[in-house]
């Protein structure tokens, strides 16, 4: 990452993040940094707090303690919100079912009056649809799309906001292996075409080790290991080894 120049992508720091839901503490003072322009994959078993972490970074949850910094600015501050854009691709894609693909992708531009000219809006949307290989699907409703196409529309909808940081919540969940590889490829390719910092949370080990510049292993609300994919694979931490080497043995036990 060090040799690359990033004018648009941002550095994200998560500092001592704590969050409880009722009596259950989900995040236990979590620290994490994503460098400008990198793809950081956060892996870990279901229920370890990965999605909660993403929701804090984008501001959908308020932490009990700790903070998220974007380029040193508190992510909840007006200054950070004015200067930097964050976008998120949700696990369920979260497309609006009553809207066509083009309406879903254009929604941010129309509702926020980012571009007043409808022609400019359609051109911007068309550019994203071409980038994501969605040409020809402009007027389809989400119910007419496959799971993989829905994910691509959700990525297009995120990119149209011109984000400095893009967050993916389980991008390959509910997809077949081929489609999962395809989505992984798209995330990786976008790094070459768009100057953006990417944080992916997933329990898909193949995706994480296939696309990440760095991998962070999360367990029970804290990061237990972080490094390049090679470093994490070689980790002596038994928790990491248990997760990355888990295999089906036909009995349900691992």
């Amino acid at each position, binding site marked *: 990452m060090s040799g690359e120049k990033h004018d648009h992508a941002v550095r994200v720091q998560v500092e001592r993040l704590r969050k409880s839901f009722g009596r259950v503490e989900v995040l236990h003072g979590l620290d994490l940094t994503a460098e400008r322009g990198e793809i950081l994959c956060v892996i870990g078993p279901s229920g370890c707090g990965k999605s909660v972490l993403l929701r804090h970074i984008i501001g959908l949850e308020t932490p009990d303690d700790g903070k998220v910094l974007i380029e040193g600015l508190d992510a909840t501050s007006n200054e950070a919100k004015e200067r930097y854009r964050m*976008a998120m691709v949700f696990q369920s894609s979260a497309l609006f079912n009553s809207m066509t693909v083009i309406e879903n992708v254009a929604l941010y531009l129309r509702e926020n009056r980012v571009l007043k000219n409808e022609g400019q809006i359609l051109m911007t949307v068309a550019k994203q649809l071409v980038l994501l290989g969605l040409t020809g699907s402009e007027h389809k409703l989400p119910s007419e799309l496959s799971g993989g196409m829905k994910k691509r529309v959700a990525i297009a909808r995120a990119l149209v906001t011109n984000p400095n940081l893009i967050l993916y919540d389980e991008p390959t969940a509910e997809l077949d292996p081929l489609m999962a590889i395809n989505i992984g490829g798209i995330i990786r390719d976008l790094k070459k075409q768009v100057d953006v910092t990417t944080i992916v949370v997933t329990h898909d080990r193949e995706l994480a080790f296939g696309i990440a510049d760095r991998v962070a292993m999360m367990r029970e609300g804290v990061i237990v290991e972080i490094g390049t994919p090679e470093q994490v694979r070689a980790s002596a931490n038994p928790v990491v080894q248990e997760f990355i080497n888990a295999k089906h043995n036909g009995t349900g036990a691992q």
Partner: protein
Amino acid sequence: MNFLLNVLREIGEALFMMFGALGQVRTAWVNRQKIIAHVLEIGNASLPMVVILSVFIGGVLALQTGYALSSTGLQSRLGVIVGLSMSRELAPVMMGVLLAGRVGAAFAAELASMSVYQEIDALRTMNINPIRFLVMPRLVAIVLCMPVLVIVADFVGWFGGGVVSAVNHKINVPFNSYFQNLQQGVEVEDVTHGLWKSMIFGLIIAVVCCYKGMTTKGGPREIGYTVTKAVVGAIVLITIFDYFLTRILISAT
């Protein structure tokens, strides 16, 4: 204690959402297409039901009252009784109950589904205020539609009462006499009382059903629970507010 705190929290949050939506009414012109779409949806969904319900409410009111009055020879006063009952009370309340069940349920189900499937979160991440985008158009549409539907219900209910009065041999009040009596007894103010009430009932339906929908968490089962809670809550509040609104409107005359 927890139950009470939860109820108070929900009331506070719902009021906060209501004031938020009312504050966004200034953007109604910009969002007019969404409002018109909801108005058409509410109208199309409700109008046939409003007509059927009102004609029979007017009819049964004439039948019950007519029988009672005929024993004392006062059935000539039937027009004003049906007219006042429909315009002041039955039309707004019954339309409130009907729209809570028909439109409020749809609002709650749609928003609950959007909440469960993270669409409302997606709006927030796109800097789109869900209250402006989802709640305000529904609130404005139902508050506009309610008085119109109540006027329709008034006329259809009066007509239903007139038909029953004329054709029922025991009541036997001619159509013309019924309407003459109705015209003499029912004033514009009586109708506007019902219209004011209906607008408040529309507000209640929108706030309760949108609030319940937007705060739904969980899965498909919770969407079902939300719809039930929203409709029952709206109907209970309509009934409670009806009493107090009636007191206020009567004391104001």
